[in-house]
């Protein structure tokens, strides 16, 4: 047996990382020119070369750094923890930093839009304030009665497990902005606020469950959930959002009867 060295081809040399061309269609909105042209928003297409390890966020970076510096989007950690870059990619809410280009069919143009239901500030940046306002309303902090324990608030592993799923929320708004009830008029509290209420309602150390249930027992609270499961599908952390909402509903019913 003799080892035959393959002829080094100019296009595919050993060690070359295979790349592919992809078209990104970005929905643009510029508040300064919106009034003049009469156009609310427009689609821009960018053609870039990407690698198998590239995420949608890398493509957006490439566009901003090499093609069009005016493209505006949010990102902080770029690793799926801070929850800044939730956007609508190919019609589904995802984190741009957790979505590989090769997973969203790069053969066709990949559409990137701002998340729905929140006011657009510019391009892919939306005003998150209505979202955070709902979050604040459910009082996302520990509420306790009585004297403070001298050492620590003890909790068993089972008690911790009860609300473990809902502690994973990163407040990216992917769930709330995927909810068709929220799209209508933005009055609904939204899945994210209910998930974060669930995190405290079922925490054995917390005594504010009654107050939180009272807040969510609103016309715009949990009762507007239609269990369409859009939120569960959108959650980049895999939280069973719809299940959490139903558990809060059940807590309200057992409280009332």
């Amino acid at each position, binding site marked *: 047996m003799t080892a035959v060295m393959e002829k080094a081809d100019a296009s595919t040399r050993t060690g070359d990382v295979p*790349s592919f*061309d992809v078209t*990104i*269609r*970005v*929905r*643009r*909105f510029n*508040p300064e020119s*919106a009034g003049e042209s*009469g*156009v*609310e*928003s*427009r*689609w*821009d*297409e*960018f*053609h*870039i*070369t990407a690698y198998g390890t590239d995420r949608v966020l890398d493509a957006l970076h*490439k566009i901003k750094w*090499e*093609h*069009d510096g005016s493209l505006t989007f949010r990102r902080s950690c770029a690793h799926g923890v801070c929850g800044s870059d939730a956007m609508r990619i190919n019609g589904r809410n995802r984190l741009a930093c957790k979505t590989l280009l090769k997973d969203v069919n790069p053969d066709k143009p990949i559409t990137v839009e701002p998340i729905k*239901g*929140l*006011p*657009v*500030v510019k391009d892919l940046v939306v*005003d998150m304030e*209505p979202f955070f*306002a*709902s979050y604040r*309303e459910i009082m996302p902090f520990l509420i306790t009665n009585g004297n403070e324990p001298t050492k620590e608030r003890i909790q068993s592993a089972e008690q911790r497990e009860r609300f473990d799923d809902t502690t994973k929320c990163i407040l990216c708004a992917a769930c709330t902005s995927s909810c*068709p*009830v929220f799209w*209508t*008029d*933005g*009055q609904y509290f939204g899945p994210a606020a209910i998930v974060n209420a669930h995190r405290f309602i079922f925490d054995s150390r917390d005594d504010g469950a009654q107050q939180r249930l*009272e*807040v969510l*027992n*609103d*016309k*715009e*609270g949990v*009762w*507007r959930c*239609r269990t369409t499961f859009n939120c569960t599908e959108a959650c980049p952390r895999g939280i069973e959002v719809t299940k959490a909402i139903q558990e809060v*509903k059940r807590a*309200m*019913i057992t409280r*009332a*009867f």
Partner: protein
Amino acid sequence: MTNATHGTPAVAERVGTLDAPRSPYVRKKTTRGNYELYSWVFMRASGVVLVVLVFGHLFVNLMVGDGVEAIDFAFVGGKWTNPFWQVWDLLMLWLAMIHGTNGLRTIINDYAERDVTRGVLKGLLYLAFTIVVVLGTLVIFTFEPCPAGADPELLASFCTA
């Protein structure tokens, strides 16, 4: 390496496809209370009861005895002289109307974007509800199975007896 073809706006979007991109979204007021809770529970409970009532109704009217052939003025007249069927039909009417109206109210709340549209649609809905329920209740309780001067052929057997 990169194809530096800066994208041109490929698609000329229709004006206003992104609805009011900068409209303020603030919860108008808190609307706490048990109303939605009770309405949610009512929908489940009335749904279960209605399954029994509706299928019972269909079974008695369409399958027992001569089945659908037996339905005429006399058949309905005979049924409504019996307090059992009066209560059955009254329950069915009220539960179905409240259940259906509440369902439509929910749909209007979900789909109507403007408060005016919402108000008008709900107004029409409640008007229709009132007319149907009042008329239906009136008929069930004031139904005359043996109107004077009618052809005895068409009436229930107990009218001529």
